[in-house]
C-alpha cells in the first residue's frame, strides 16, 4: 500500500513537467520554416476539374510593357544590422513601369493567390530562371559586381508565381522573326530582342521578391593538365571561380489595392 502511494507521487511529479497538457500541444508537427495556413476558401474548383479546363487555374498576366532589360536586379539599400520595417524605394527604378490597367482575370484570381501562402516564384537573373521560396539560398553562377554583403536586391523579373493551387504564369513571349540560315548564336550585335522586350515576364507590380547578398563563395581549385604529344612538358592550369550567394528575403504577392494605388516598394 505504502509503495503504491510512493510510486504514484513519484509519477505525479514526473508528469508535472513544464509542458502544457497534451491537448494544448500543437496538433501538427512540421519541420518547415513557413507556416502552411490556407486561408483561401476551402479547395478551389480549379484543382478538382483541372483536367477538363487546364487554363482555368492559370491566369495570364497582362502584357508587360516594353522595357529595356538593363539588369534584373536593382540595389536598394545597404542595410547591415538595423532591421527596417519598410524598406526604402529603389533608387533607380525603370521609368517605363507598366501602367496598363489590370485584366479581369488578374483582378478576380490574384486575391485568391495572395490568400494562399506559401508562394514560390521563378525569378530570372540575367535571363536564367531560379525557382525559389522565401528563405532559400541562391548561389548565382557568377560573381556579381558592385555588391557587398548586406545589400538588398529587388528581383523584378519573374515568369511564374504560384502557391499550392494557383499559378500565375507570364504571357508567352512574342515570337522572334529570325532568318532561317542564321543560328541565334551567330547573330551579332544584339539584334535579337531579349525576353523582357518580348514581354515574357510577369508584370512587376504584382509581386515583391527581395534577396540579400550573403557573401561570396568559391569552388575548390580546378587543376587541369595540358600536354602536347611527344613532349615531356606538362602545363598545369589552375582556376578558381567565385560566386555570389543570395538569400531570398521576401516573396510576396501584392494586393489589388496596393497595385491600384500605384505605390512602389
Amino acid at each position, binding site marked *: 500500500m505504502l509503495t503504491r502511494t510512493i510510486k504514484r507521487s513519484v509519477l505525479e511529479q514526473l508528469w508535472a513537467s513544464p509542458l502544457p497538457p497534451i491537448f494544448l500541444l500543437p496538433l501538427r508537427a*512540421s519541420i518547415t520554416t513557413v507556416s502552411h495556413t490556407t486561408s483561401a476558401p476551402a479547395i478551389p474548383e480549379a484543382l478538382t476539374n483541372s483536367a477538363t479546363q487546364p487554363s482555368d487555374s492559370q491566369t495570364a498576366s497582362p502584357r508587360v510593357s516594353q522595357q529595356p532589360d538593363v539588369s534584373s536586379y536593382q540595389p536598394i539599400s545597404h542595410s547591415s544590422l538595423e532591421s527596417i520595417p519598410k524598406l526604402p524605394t529603389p533608387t533607380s527604378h525603370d521609368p517605363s513601369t507598366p501602367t496598363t490597367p489590370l485584366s479581369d482575370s488578374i483582378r478576380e484570381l490574384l486575391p485568391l493567390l495572395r490568400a494562399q501562402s506559401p*508562394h514560390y516564384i521563378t525569378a530570372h537573373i540575367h535571363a536564367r530562371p531560379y525557382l525559389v521560396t522565401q528563405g*532559400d539560398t541562391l548561389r548565382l553562377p557568377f560573381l556579381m559586381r558592385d555588391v557587398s554583403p548586406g545589400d538588398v536586391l529587388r528581383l523584378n523579373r519573374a515568369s511564374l508565381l504560384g*502557391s499550392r493551387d494557383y499559378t500565375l504564369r507570364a504571357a508567352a513571349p512574342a515570337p522572334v522573326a529570325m532568318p532561317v540560315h542564321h543560328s541565334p548564336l551567330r547573330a551579332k550585335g544584339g539584334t535579337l530582342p531579349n525576353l523582357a522586350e518580348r514581354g515574357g515576364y510577369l508584370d512587376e507590380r504584382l509581386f515583391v521578391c527581395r534577396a540579400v547578398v550573403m557573401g*561570396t563563395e568559391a569552388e575548390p581549385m580546378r587543376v587541369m593538365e595540358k600536354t602536347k604529344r611527344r613532349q615531356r612538358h606538362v602545363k598545369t592550369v589552375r582556376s578558381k571561380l567565385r560566386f555570389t550567394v543570395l538569400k531570398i528575403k521576401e516573396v510576396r504577392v501584392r494586393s489589388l489595392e496596393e497595385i491600384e494605388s500605384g505605390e512602389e516598394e
Partner: protein
Amino acid sequence: MPLQALRTVARSQNGVGAFILQCKRLDFHYCDWAGSSKGMNSFLQSHLPAFAASNPQIEITVSPRPRKHPVIKGTYINGREKAVCVRNMEVKEILAKAELLRDANGEKLRKAKKPVKSANESVRGIWDPFHGANWSI
C-alpha cells in the same frame, strides 16, 4: 492529414529578417623581424584603420607571431575558421585577401551542382495519383 515528422528546433535563417555578417572576427598576425611580413606591416599601418572603420561588424585583432609568416585568420558564425598565409604579399594583395575573408561564409569550398538550396517543403506538394483531377481514359 499526412504523416508529419516531429517538430524540431527552428533553424536560423540569416538574412530573412536581420542580416548578420558571417565573418565575426579577423586576426592579423605579423612579425617585426621577418622580411615576408614587410607588406603586412605596411598594411597594418596604412590600410587596416580604414578597413576596420568600414567594417564595424567585425572584431579585428592584431598580434605578433615572431619568426613565422604573416597570417590572416577569419572566424565565422558557423564556428569554423579560415586562415590565409600572406607571406611576401603586397599591400593590395593583402587587402584583397582580407576582403575575401570578410565575404566568405566559413564553409568548406565545395562544388555545387544546384543553384538553389531550400529548407522549405515543396510548395505545390507531392503528386498523388488518387487525388486531384480524375483522368478518364
